[in-house]
């Protein structure tokens, strides 16, 4: 049971980032490899506002998200928008280049040392043997609220209909007067806000280090590839599934005989992609068209 809760914690974080990635891939057909850095920027900004400027935590988080959004917008304008119409793989290269620039900037601004938004012990609660901190509970809840409200917007509102229209037939949406270009920018920035939320999550639950960015991106990719590229809910589901697998792999006494060494935990995500792709080459919920 504790493993399940652990998976929920790790999975919530991954789901936020994978969700953002899936939306962008679904709509623009673009892989954004700077997403891990954008997550860190959100986390580090929040840390700086809260721990250095001593702003209230709530305000720091909001401004952290805003900063994440701003940098994501710049990312879109510089590394994605000028290129993605020419070929959808171009941003693969440009966002890698941009991610390296961001890596450098993070080092320069926030220095090369681990930062924790809320250092020390959290407020721990125990329910029938399962221990979870208040902060973790709130983070899991916040992730659910964010994902559910996005689901609501996506499926029930006028804005969501337009987004889906652009995803499913961009030209038709355009010729009805839906401003697809604006929506592209909006969704890209939204994915950055999701990532920034993920970064703040890490900063609160653990600690931020500048080298964290790439592993974050990789895990999110594992989830969206397994979930069927561009399938939002598939990506989110598999973010949780991979987190659960990681926990089970090292946490369970397999066949009552042995534990898998913890060093293999990190490889789960990548092995998982390989297995899924062998069984279902289009991903679990994938189909030929992008549906988001």
């Amino acid at each position, binding site marked *: 049971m504790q493993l399940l809760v652990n998976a929920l914690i790790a999975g919530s974080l991954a789901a936020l980032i994978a969700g953002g990635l899936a939306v962008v891939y679904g709509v623009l057909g673009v892989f954004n490899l700077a997403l891990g850095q954008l997550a860190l920027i959100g986390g580090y900004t929040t840390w700086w506002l809260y721990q250095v400027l001593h702003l209230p935590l709530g305000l720091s988080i909001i401004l952290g998200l805003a900063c994440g959004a701003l940098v994501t917008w710049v990312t879109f304008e510089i590394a994605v928008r000028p290129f993605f119409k020419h070929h959808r793989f171009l941003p693969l290269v440009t966002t890698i280049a941009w991610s390296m620039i961001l890596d450098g900037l993070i080092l320069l601004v926030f220095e090369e040392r681990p930062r924790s938004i809320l250092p020390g012990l959290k407020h721990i609660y125990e329910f029938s043997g399962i221990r979870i901190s208040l902060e973790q509970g709130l983070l899991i809840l916040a992730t659910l609220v964010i994902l559910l409200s996005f689901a609501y917007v996506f499926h029930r509102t006028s804005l969501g*209909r337009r987004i*889906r229209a652009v995803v499913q*037939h961009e030209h038709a949406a355009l010729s009805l007067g839906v401003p*697809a*270009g604006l929506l592209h920018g909006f969704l890209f920035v939204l994915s950055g806000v999701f990532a920034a939320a993920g970064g703040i999550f890490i900063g609160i639950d653990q600690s931020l280090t500048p080298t964290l960015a790439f592993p974050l991106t990789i895990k999110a990719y594992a989830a969206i590839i397994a979930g069927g590229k561009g399938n939002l809910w598939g990506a989110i589901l598999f973010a949780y599934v991979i987190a659960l697998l990681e926990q089970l792999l090292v946490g369970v006494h397999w066949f009552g005989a042995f534990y898998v060494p913890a060093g293999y935990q990190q490889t789960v995500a990548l092995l998982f992609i390989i297995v899924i792709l062998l069984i279902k080459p289009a991903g679990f919920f994938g189909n030929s068209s992008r549906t988001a």
Partner: protein
Amino acid sequence: MSILRISHLSLSLGGQQILDGINFNVEEGEVIGVIGPNGSGKTTLFNVLSGFLKPSHGTIHFCDKDITSYSASERARLGIGRVFQNFGIFRDMTLEENVLVALEALPKERRKALGNIKEVVKGTLAMVGLSQFAKRKAGSLSGGQMRLLEIARTLKAEKQLFLLDEPTAGVSPKMTSQIADLISELKREKKTVLIVEHDLPFISKICDRVIVLDVGKIVLTGKPQEVKQSKELQEIYFGANPAD
């Protein structure tokens, strides 16, 4: 007044001249057929008119406004509607949602003027006899039904100029006549319609005028009956495609 004026319109892509000095005017309420062999530039002409492609030369005036530099969604909001050959519907959305997207893309005051938006959606689906599928995914419809939905949606989105790209392609004969009826309905409502089509009987039944394109140039224009009997058409069109 000409609702659409196209002058000296040219487009070259990758060194190839796809459109070569197209000139023609369309009067309000006219229904015009655009025909020509495959690769003659019909769909490209529509893509330039919709704003998906930028012309290399020439201008497009719509309602006396130079719209050559307008984006696709700006043109749509001015009243240019497009019906796609490969079905421009949103397959994973319900029929209701498909109509809603069109209505919600209208400028605010015009959307308000529609009144109860749900009723308008119902009316739109009823008009093309698709009311019973309102909650179904649009992707589950037949080709003809999709096309009816798309045309009805474009009509309710208050478009003035309709660009219909092969409305009968992939549609059963029975549905083809329904589509023809719907286009006649557009005509009654004083809408202007451009149709790219291979089905000549269909064209001659509903069009006021026919334009024949070949290798990016207008080679012939006139009443359907005249064009049908002209020698040029036999050569470039039927000559090139004996199967038709």
